[in-house]
């Protein structure tokens, strides 16, 4: 082997294996705290509002991206949203194959800047942008104040 050949597998040689203990706790922040507490305790989804720019933010943030004002007003997000984009995952985040493909979607809401990235609770072949969807929440005792308090988004049942 010359020095131009790269060794990509350290285990070919005498080696030491380990696991970096890089545990972390990431807090939600001021606006995120409001969002998750409302989601957990009341099953509501909140957006923060900039009254000057007439803009609502989801997930809520503490400052307006346009005018840098501190945002203190919160409003409820509409029940129904719209699927802006979908993707079907066949492997998990470690790269292991999933037993069933998972559908993920970015869901936006009328008049709100931003949106939520979450599971789309439909069969992969039915997943498409444009679907009208609503959040399906976990029951109150199962909610812990994380994004997983939402099980996913399911199609809004049509009246027809």
């Amino acid at each position, binding site marked *: *082997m*010359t*020095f131009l050949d790269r*060794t990509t*597998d*350290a*285990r*070919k*040689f*005498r*080696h*030491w*294996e*380990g*696991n*970096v*203990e*890089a*545990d*972390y*706790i*990431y*807090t*939600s922040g*001021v606006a*995120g*705290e409001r969002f*998750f*507490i409302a989601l*957990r305790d009341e099953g509501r989804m909140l957006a923060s509002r900039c009254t000057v720019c007439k803009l609502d933010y989801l997930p809520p943030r503490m400052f307006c991206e346009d005018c840098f004002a501190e945002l203190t007003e919160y409003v409820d997000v509409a029940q129904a949203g719209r699927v802006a984009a979908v993707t079907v995952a066949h492997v998990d985040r*470690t790269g292991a194959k999933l037993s069933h493909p998972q559908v993920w979607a970015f869901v936006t809401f009328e008049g709100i800047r931003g949106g939520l990235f979450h599971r789309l609770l439909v069969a992969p072949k039915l997943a498409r942008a444009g679907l009208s969807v609503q959040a399906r929440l976990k029951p109150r005792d199962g909610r812990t*104040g*994380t994004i997983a308090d939402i099980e996913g988004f399911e199609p809004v049942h049509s009246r027809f």
Partner: protein
Amino acid sequence: MTARISRWPGIELRAADLIEGKVTQTRFRPDAKYAWSAGEAMSRFLEELQNGRFIARTCHKCERILFPPRMFCEECFRPTDAWTFIHDTGTIETFSVSYLDTDAKRITEPILVGVVSLDGASPKMGMMHYFGGMTKDEIRIGMPVKAEWKPPGDRRGSVLDILYFRPLREGER
């Protein structure tokens, strides 16, 4: 805080607040596995220690024998060419008489450590190790020494497969 600022803006959280779950949070443990390799040259070097011998690399351009072995000649900027065994005897280049042990604890009986250049390698090529079989008053720079190996069954392919370097005896090589 400073003389002018008694309180920083923002919300202070103590470690206990996080542990008690006073605020919503995400906890994560990344699966950050690694394998750290000694590399091609040093792996062979360690394996040969288990066999009770020292191996070096030669560079055919500068005609040096590099020890500890490396796959790249830092003088010629080219890959080294061949493996070669060298002797387990050498010369003390430099030493320290240490009254601190490996945990930096104070000790009364000093340990002797230093650099030994090995016979068969290019001048000044050597390694750091312990010296034994001599006192702090007997040790000197230029002293000929020989590796005192652990019994073959106790060797693990580690630099500690050598117990220490001891004085070379009369008629020994």
